[in-house]
């Protein structure tokens, strides 16, 4: 399948998924099981993504890309498992899952994603290229931290919650910003070739 066909298929799949969500929200907007209907595509996509990444991690030479894809597969498998536990806690056990077991799976997911990001290669050859990549990471880190603090974190920490909630509330934005900052040099320095293209696309996604 050519790159153009890939882009077309990805675009079509995104439109289909958005259409499904809009349709579900129109038909079942007041139903008790609406969350189930709206959550299902995300669990399915996380599972499908983990399977696709695992498949990509088992082909080609044993190199940094394969290690990165494998870690990412573990990360999204943990995301899917966490989402399933979240649904079970919410709808089967009637508990509030916000500060409960699903966060353990999400923690595994973030750690694996971080390992995956660090596994992918970044090797600008020139010193000036390394300096520029470092500055790009700095820009992403500072801007991401400031925006997430102002928009999400400071509001959710007021009034101060207990220590477990405090840790969980802080963990999500901090993990997002750190992983985002580590992704930037991978996105910018991925080389040519199919793996370089796929890494660029993975980092963008």
């Amino acid at each position: 399948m050519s790159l153009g066909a890939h882009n077309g298929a990805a675009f079509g799949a995104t439109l289909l998924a958005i259409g499904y969500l809009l349709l579900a929200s129109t038909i079942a907007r007041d139903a008790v099981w609406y969350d189930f209907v709206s959550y299902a595509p995300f669990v399915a996509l996380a599972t499908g993504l983990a399977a696709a990444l695992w498949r990509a991690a088992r082909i080609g030479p044993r190199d940094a890309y394969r290690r990165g894809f494998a870690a990412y597969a573990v990360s999204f498998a943990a995301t899917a498992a966490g989402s399933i536990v979240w649904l079970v806690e919410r709808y089967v056990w009637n508990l509030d899952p916000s500060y409960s077991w699903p966060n353990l799976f999400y923690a595994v997911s973030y750690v694996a994603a971080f390992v995956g990001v660090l596994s992918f290669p970044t090797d600008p050859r020139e010193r000036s290229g390394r300096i520029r990549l470092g500055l790009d990471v700095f820009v992403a880190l500072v801007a991401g931290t400031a925006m997430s603090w102002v928009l999400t974190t400071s509001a959710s920490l007021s009034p101060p919650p207990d220590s477990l909630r405090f840790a969980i509330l802080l963990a999500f934005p901090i993990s997002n910003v750190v992983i985002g900052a580590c992704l930037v040099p991978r996105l910018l320095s991925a080389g040519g070739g199919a793996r370089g293209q796929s890494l660029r696309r993975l980092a963008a996604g």
Partner: protein
Amino acid sequence: LIYLAGDLGYQWGDGLFSIEKVGVFDVLYLIGYVVMISAAQLAWQHHDAVPAENRSRSGPRPRNVVPWVVAAGLYAVLIDAAVNGNLDAVSTLTIAALLVTVAILIRGRSPNANAFVWRTRSDSNAASCGCEP
């Protein structure tokens, strides 16, 4: 990055921006998932024969717009905070904007700012003539 943007947006204002009951940030999640699935599919279908550690780079890289996009987002949030009189946020965002602006200025003035692309093109020329760079 799209997925992470969706995650941060979800924590920021789930339900603030929605059509019917579908949040804008759900759409970012969906796009992120589909883009990553297509990346994995691409890697599976067109895998390289040579390990990454032994492979020289080839092909020009795209122009780097990520720092500019991030900086524009930061300035947009700063302007929004200033217009809405959120002084606590303005002070934090001003310091961040100052640091980001200085970093972007240094980055633009670093020697051989375009060396990345230039060297890559020479590599691809060398590859096409069969000689090592």
